[in-house]
């Protein structure tokens, strides 16, 4: 059985301030670093992960400031630079008023109607 895996991430910003990253993207980094052949599809709220210029800095409780805020777009960019293909659902970007010129380079846009063919091209699909 093949092991080419597509990771579908729908829930965006789940615990990212506490983790200082996205838990699924972090795991994809780790899987890739350990030899997994895996790609990512961002949809729903997670489509926002490809927007450039995000800044999660400034979190502060009393005197305790967060010194290493999450850099989610940076995590996505780092994945693409490692050769992980990152797809984002175009329809979800449009719903959120996000234009293509506001997104990271090197991400691939895919329409909802194209998802069946994309999913069929993988051996396994993991829905997070």
């Amino acid at each position, binding site marked *: 059985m093949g092991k080419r895996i597509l990771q579908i991430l729908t829930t965006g910003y*789940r*615990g990212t301030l506490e983790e200082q990253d996205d838990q699924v993207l972090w795991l994809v980094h780790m899987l890739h670093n350990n030899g997994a052949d895996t790609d990512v599809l961002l949809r729903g709220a997670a489509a926002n992960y490809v927007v450039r210029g995000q800044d999660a800095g400034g979190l502060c409780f*009393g005197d305790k400031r967060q010194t290493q805020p999450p850099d989610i777009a940076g995590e996505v960019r780092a994945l693409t630079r490692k050769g992980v293909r990152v797809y984002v659902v175009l329809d979800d970007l449009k719903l959120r008023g996000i234009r293509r010129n506001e997104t990271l380079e090197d991400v691939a846009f895919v329409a909802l109607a194209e998802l069946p063919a994309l999913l069929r091209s993988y051996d396994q699909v993991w829905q997070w």
Partner: protein
Amino acid sequence: MSTKTLTFVLNDPPYDSARSTTALRLVDAALKRGFDVNVFAYEGAVGLATSAQTPHANVIHGRDAQSEDHPNPKDWISALQLEARRNSLRFDWVNCGLCSDERGTGEAIAGVRRGVPADLWAFVRSSVNTLVIPTR
């Protein structure tokens, strides 16, 4: 009923959503505006104040534990406790005892006490308003 006391009811465990972080930001804002604050941590939220939480390094970020400065919610709660003390405000945090037992949640940080739903009712009666941060 105090006109300067607010009660928050939290449900989500740490590291699983943004809701508890947002709730703590609201608590911080309330303390900065001179409100006494009660928190009733219910179900998974009892884990927010667990004293055994430990920061870790992050190999993907390329940072050791010190430079990662990984936040633990218990430290955020401690910072809020300090903020309250500095402003001479009351900040009372109660963990649902049964919820802690179910989960085997370890000891909570100082200033967090074990309680029962009657404590929540006492909180509500003494507060100008109560905000439930629900889970999904």
